[in-house]
């Protein structure tokens, strides 16, 4: 529980600093997006971006091709998976300002080495 509290405190600290300036951002996004929050926050700064926001730049089919697995494990492709096909919104597994585990890890032990929490 303690660990959870620490994580929670860190997240809250992150939220507070949002109003200031230093909000955590993925390095590769900094180069492209810079500090223009509105690029992603299409529902307003205080709301989560819409499910379409990431798709301005990313293409689901391309992502699915990049993360394709062997025939035997083909349905473990996070961008085209057994349970939700290509319809799983990005924010279920990826967070820009906080770390997230892949949704699959709720039930499965397989690993996605390139996934950044």
């Amino acid at each position, binding site marked *: 529980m303690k660990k959870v509290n620490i994580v929670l405190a860190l997240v809250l600290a992150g939220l507070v600093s949002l109003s200031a300036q230093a909000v955590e951002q993925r390095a590769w996004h900094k180069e492209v997006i810079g500090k223009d929050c509105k690029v992603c926050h299409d529902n307003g700064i205080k709301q989560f971006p819409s499910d379409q926001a990431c798709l301005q730049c990313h293409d689901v089919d391309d992502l699915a091709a990049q993360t394709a697995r062997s025939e035997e494990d083909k*349905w473990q492709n996070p961008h085209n998976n*057994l*349970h*939700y096909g290509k*319809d799983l919104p990005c*924010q279920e597994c990826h967070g820009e300002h906080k770390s997230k*585990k892949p949704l699959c890890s709720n039930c499965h*032990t397989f690993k996605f080495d390139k996934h950044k929490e």
Partner: protein
Amino acid sequence: MSNVDLLGRRNFIKGMGAAAGVAMAAPAMAVSEKADGVKWDKEVEVLIIGSGFAGLAAAIEATRKGAKDVHIFEKMAYFGGNSAINGGLFAAPGTPMQKKEGVEDSVDRMVADQLKSGRGIADEALLRHVASHAVEALQMTIDAGAEFHPYLQQLGGHSVARTYQTTVSCGAGITQPLYKECKKLGVHTHNRSKFEGFLVGDKGEVLGVKMRENYHFGEDQPGKVLKIRAKRGVIMATGGFAQNVDLRMAQDPTLTSEVGCTNAPGATGEGMYEMFRLGAIPVHLAHIQSGPWASPDEGGFGYVSNYSIYNFPHSMAINRLTGKRFMNEIADRKTRADAELACRDEQGNPLPPILITSYKDSKKHPNTKKVIKYNVGWKFDTIEELAKHFEVPLKPLKAQIEEYNGYVKSGEDKQFGKNMTKAKDKYIEAPFTVVRLWPKVHYCQGGVQVNTKAEVKDSFTGQPIKGLYAAGEVCGGIHGVSRLGSCSIPECMVMGMTAARSVMKA
């Protein structure tokens, strides 16, 4: 604001018995209101809440019956609900595959099996209604593109083999085709839409709902609340509450976070409790079923569940303390789950029992490879190796295998009376595959009372609440004490279709 404890499933794996409740951002309390003078933000013809089997079947059937403007609202980011992650097992009596395999079955026989497992308190009229329309519902899934294994399975508590399973061994093999069919038919689907209460007319009839847009599960929810009028009616297909540890412990205090859960995170029960506030009759809430085929080595339903469901008929379940069998491996779910929970070490801590199968027989199931590959099951070349790995006393284990193989030969299990038909010629021999077993909360038999028209009954008048229909796991009383495996999908599908037919006649 109140806090809802949602079970952290990964925590269960890390440390069994450790407190696993994680406080999540609590949703604002859902409250129903009078619709007097309300300004509707939107009007739809048929309003469905929940996008699992029941919701999707209802949407398709409503459209086929002539509805032009059908809307499905889903709380989560993705569609399919709990239906998208279960075993994809579908029981029906009198199917083409039964005819091909020479299995004698009937609606009466399926209902009789279910009544037995329901231990006297199941709803025969509803069971009969579902069994009578199960083949029709199976056809709907096939028409939409669902594919099934070319063999039947006989699950625990069923007197004959009557269970189809999708080729992907998962409910997604049905929800994905049904969802695509919905899109094709022009059904409007809305994700991240959280039900926040009913809007009721002067006579207590349901006129519409409050629906929060842009809802992010487990987060603060800044989205706007819309008041949506449902011209023909509201179909509640919101599922069970197995993921809500507080609610399930209120009904059955033994279902602590020590017992994991197979359900999708969204199975938290608000839709059901809001119907109770409106006057719906609560039935059998304390009857919550745990799946005896689950594994403590992975979260949720995972890979092991289907592996064991397939393998139980020709496997031995062993208590690691004694090296002996402790249950009929194909008894109904409650019998087995209770027997497993009783497997503990000398200090009373959980000692998950093991399921031993001959590799030659287990490998016929597509999951076996994955179970081994992803370290949630193991393969052993000798019994000594197996016994050492799980610290099982070797001598009694060897004696038990010999004894059990005698039952395979004679066809009669003198220990637990297991039906040995499917174990014929399948001796327990090396090499072995082994998984660990521990029950996980799987299904809530309880919920709101409905009639065979899927109308929700009012607790004071005994009459249906006008404008309100419910289908699937959110309904209660149908199965009684214990639901038989593979009987939920036909129920969800048939009652979803039934609700749609009733809505279109209303």
